[in-house]
């Protein structure tokens, strides 16, 4: 039915089956969209956020998708700037994940603000001292970069590529991609960092506040670093899932091992920095404002030391070590465990830096504020996941995403022309 659109030389599932799958995921998207309409029409009272919890599930989701979407910029940086050529086998997919993550992030911001029609004020009336301004600018620009990086892949669709202009455009864009990638890396460095800065500069919130370098709190660097470290984990995880769903090997082990190794070293170095930061914060920053370390992890029903342990040790140190040690890295089960832990770890970090910050009482007579999201929040947070699945399914079906797909799956077969 849609065979004319399917890349040459590969097999895809039957259209009815594909359509059915899309319909199921589409239903989830629809559920999310209903929630979106409710939120836009009736306002943010549809959420369970409140004046204590002005930043909640969405902002966590926003930070989390940007963190895991960091695989795109870091892989791009390695591929185009540091010329790690092996990564060409996964760069398309990394970019697609990036596009999904960043479009989701922008979408979440669009529902999260109280007056979406005024969102452009953040650009027009920009306050350059605000970390959020930096986030907004870099995020939108970097999203543009991702789209630019994704366009050639789209144009390589069998039918589109027949259009001469598109063919040339795709070719020429590849030619200057290094420039775009460099710009993207620059932008990404700043917005990942400024997302960390968002929490770190809040000197009224001792749980979030960090000292730092010039105008940038340490969280600025930790966020960039952690995105670069854990982003590839997510790229590998999604690749693994896609491989499982399609039943095909899509990226060679060599590429996977390389990316896993890079990620492992990034995670390990990051987590060392994070541990140093935590110790310094706990022993110097926190007591200076009259708090004790235990204040942030006790007297409430949810936040305990477990979350600190889970974030730093279980989902930081453990995946880092698993990925830098060759035997465990090259063991597919342990590698999978490591990348799952890694993805959880970075998401936990973003959770802590958003939700726990809001929950901790600061005034001595204040109380912990715990919060349970409404279904509208949950639906709109799941929406990007469903949307991402649809996006990947469409891209995989119609675009030549994985350059190694043919050689890894149909090595003996001659190229068959499908008419």
């Amino acid at each position, binding site marked *: 039915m849609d065979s004319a659109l399917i890349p040459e030389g590969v097999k895809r599932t039957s259209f009815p089956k594909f359509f059915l799958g899309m319909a199921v995921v589409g239903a989830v998207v629809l559920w999310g969209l209903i929630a979106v309409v409710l939120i836009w029409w009736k*306002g943010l009272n549809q959420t369970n956020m409140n*004046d204590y919890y002005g930043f909640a599930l969405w902002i966590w989701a926003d930070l989390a998708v940007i963190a895991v979407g960091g695989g795109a910029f870091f892989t791009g940086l390695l591929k185009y700037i540091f010329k790690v050529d092996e990564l060409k086998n996964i760069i398309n997919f990394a970019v697609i994940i990036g596009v999904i993550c960043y479009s989701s992030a922008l979408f979440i911001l669009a529902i999260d*603000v109280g007056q979406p029609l005024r969102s452009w004020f953040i650009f*027009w009336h*920009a306050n350059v001292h*605000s970390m959020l301004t930096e986030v907004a600018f870099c995020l939108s620009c970097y999203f543009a970069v991702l789209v630019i990086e994704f366009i050639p892949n789209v144009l390589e669709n069998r039918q589109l590529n027949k259009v001469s202009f598109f063919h040339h455009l795709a070719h020429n864009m590849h030619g200057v991609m290094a420039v775009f990638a460099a710009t993207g890396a620059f932008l990404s460095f700043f917005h990942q960092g400024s997302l960390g800065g968002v929490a770190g*500069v809040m000197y*009224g919130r*001792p749980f979030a506040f960090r000292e730092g370098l010039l105008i940038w709190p340490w969280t600025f660097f930790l966020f960039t670093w952690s995105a670069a470290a854990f982003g590839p984990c997510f790229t590998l995880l999604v690749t693994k899932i896609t491989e499982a769903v399609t039943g095909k090997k899509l990226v060679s082990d060599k590429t996977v091992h390389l990316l896993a190794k890079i990620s492992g070293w990034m995670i390990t170095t990051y987590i060392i920095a994070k541990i140093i930061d935590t110790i310094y914060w706990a022993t110097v920053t926190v007591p200076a404002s009259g708090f004790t370390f235990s204040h942030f992890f006790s007297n409430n029903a949810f936040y305990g030391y477990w979350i600190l342990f889970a974030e730093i040790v279980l989902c930081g140190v453990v995946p880092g070590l698993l990925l830098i040690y060759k035997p465990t890295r090259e063991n597919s089960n342990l590698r999978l465990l490591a990348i799952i832990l890694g993805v959880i770890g970075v998401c936990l970090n973003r959770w802590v830096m958003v939700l726990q910050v809001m929950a901790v009482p600061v005034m001595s007579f204040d109380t912990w504020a715990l919060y349970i999201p409404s279904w509208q929040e949950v639906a709109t947070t799941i929406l990007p996941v469903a949307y991402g699945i649809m996006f990947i399914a469409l891209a995989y079906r119609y675009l030549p995403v994985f350059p190694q797909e043919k050689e890894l799956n149909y090595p003996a077969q001659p190229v068959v022309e499908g008419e």
Partner: protein
Amino acid sequence: MKQENKKEHKFGMVIDLDKCTGCGSCMVSCMAENNVPFKEDESNKKDSITWMRVYKLTNGKDFPETEVVYMPRPCQHCSGKGGHGHSPCVSVCPATATDYGKDTGIVSQIYTRCFGCRYCMGACPYHARYFNWWDPKWPEGMENYLSPNVSPRMRGVVEKCSFCYHRYQLAREKAYLEEREEIEEMEYQTACTTACPAGAIVFGDLNNPEHEVTKIVKPDDHPDPRNPDVVGKSRNPKVFRLLERLGTNTKVYYLSEREWVRKAGDNYTEGEWETIKNHHGKTQISHG
């Protein structure tokens, strides 16, 4: 250097917690003055717009040693670290919708500029900022009492205490028409101050030594030797500020004879209060 003729003010207040009775007049005066909306259920205090909120603090002791104090909390109008105007909220607003008035020390909020990202609320440790989660709606006819001097807010934006800035504007206009350079202390008073039946709130210009608030607070303009971020610490040993140690440099001071109340204003590690309370109010000595 500023060559303007305009004198720099630093408006602030001191609230005598021993006089405060928790009667709530300040809260209602504020709501009525500033067109604050209300809704059917206001019992969830985390979703209830009260620019002036009165907290109830207890000393935590068992019956019958229990003591209670009420603490009115308007926006603290932080001057930020070192008093340079980078209050926790102003510095984070991405759209310049909240600003620090260099000539007044007042942290303003531009409702039509705010697009509701709520970063400022996250940054404020005093919960002084409120989001319009709901459409403000008045029962039929009740819009008639709304004041034109304060813009009613729309859903989806953040609002907060403005130290009744419109009253400052009106006072200035009046002074201008009467060809006076300066306004008198009593010409500009916030709605909570004038409403307080106990006279617990004293408002004025902390830069003007003649003003009552300055006489009570005796602010020390030198940085606190223990924490260079802190300026304007009171020299009155009975006066304290909320979360002073964070360096927010609020311009709302509190006064109490009771030690436990003063201690409740900030956080202290084990045993630290004993050293700090003795140090409190003696900072001018270290500056000779």
